[in-house]
């Protein structure tokens, strides 16, 4: 089994941290060894999925409360990557939500669909009573 990189990030519930968290995903993509795909594309996709999930945690999960925090963990090996985004909200039903067909001219409603398209396995679950969006990606 290949060795894992583990990142654990806690940020105040503010959109000013989106860029930092997204960029951590980009830097991680460039540090993965033995990745044979398009690294720039992977970097963009990790930046994007982290940004979308953190935005939702801030606005929906934590209801824009500036006193709350979002907690993010990233665990990566040569084989796969697992991202978890924890918020202090109630969670939501991924299945019913993503079956709603989005109107191409809606302003919102694209975040979760983007995550579902770019990640291999996405779940919304409770871990010790805390809501977490878990995203997994195979790396080969």
């Amino acid at each position, binding site marked *: 089994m290949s060795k894992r990189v583990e990142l654990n990030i806690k940020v105040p519930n503010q*959109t*000013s941290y*989106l*860029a930092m968290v*997204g960029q951590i995903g980009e830097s991680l993509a460039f540090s993965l060894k033995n990745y044979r795909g398009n690294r*720039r*594309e992977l970097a*963009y996709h990790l*930046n*994007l999925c982290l*940004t*979308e999930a953190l*935005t939702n945690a*801030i*606005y929906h999960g934590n209801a824009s409360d500036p006193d709350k925090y979002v907690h993010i963990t990233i665990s990566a090996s040569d084989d796969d990557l697992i991202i978890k985004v924890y918020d202090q909200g109630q969670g939501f039903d991924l299945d019913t939500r993503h079956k709603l067909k989005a109107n*191409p*001219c*809606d*302003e*919102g409603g*694209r*975040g979760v*669909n*983007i995550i579902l*398209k*770019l990640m291999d396995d996405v779940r919304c679950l409770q871990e010790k009573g805390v809501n977490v969006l878990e995203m997994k990606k195979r790396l080969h």
Partner: protein
Amino acid sequence: MQLKMTEKDDAVILAVEDERMDAHNSGNLKEKMLQLFDEGKYQLVIDLSAVRFIDSSGLGALVSGFKNASARDGSLRLCCLQPQVRSMFELTRLHRVFEIFASLDEALESQS
């Protein structure tokens, strides 16, 4: 968000000068466009040449501008997308909604 505004004939060109468009800064663009609509300026060209990263909030701000321009018989055209930004329009199928031009000149010329 840093926006550079220039006017050319009856079109207003807004060049986004941030590398990143996300939920933190896209609200500014939306507000700026609403202000232009209030001033009766309905022909917008958004120059995205500096933008390296856009997420669903950035796309949402552009959709908002597009809908408001269309509702006023105006237009919102996009130009100078970096390849990874262009991919985001394809991923979300928004390339079928927007008029996207390779250069600012082409965007300005196409005005109907």
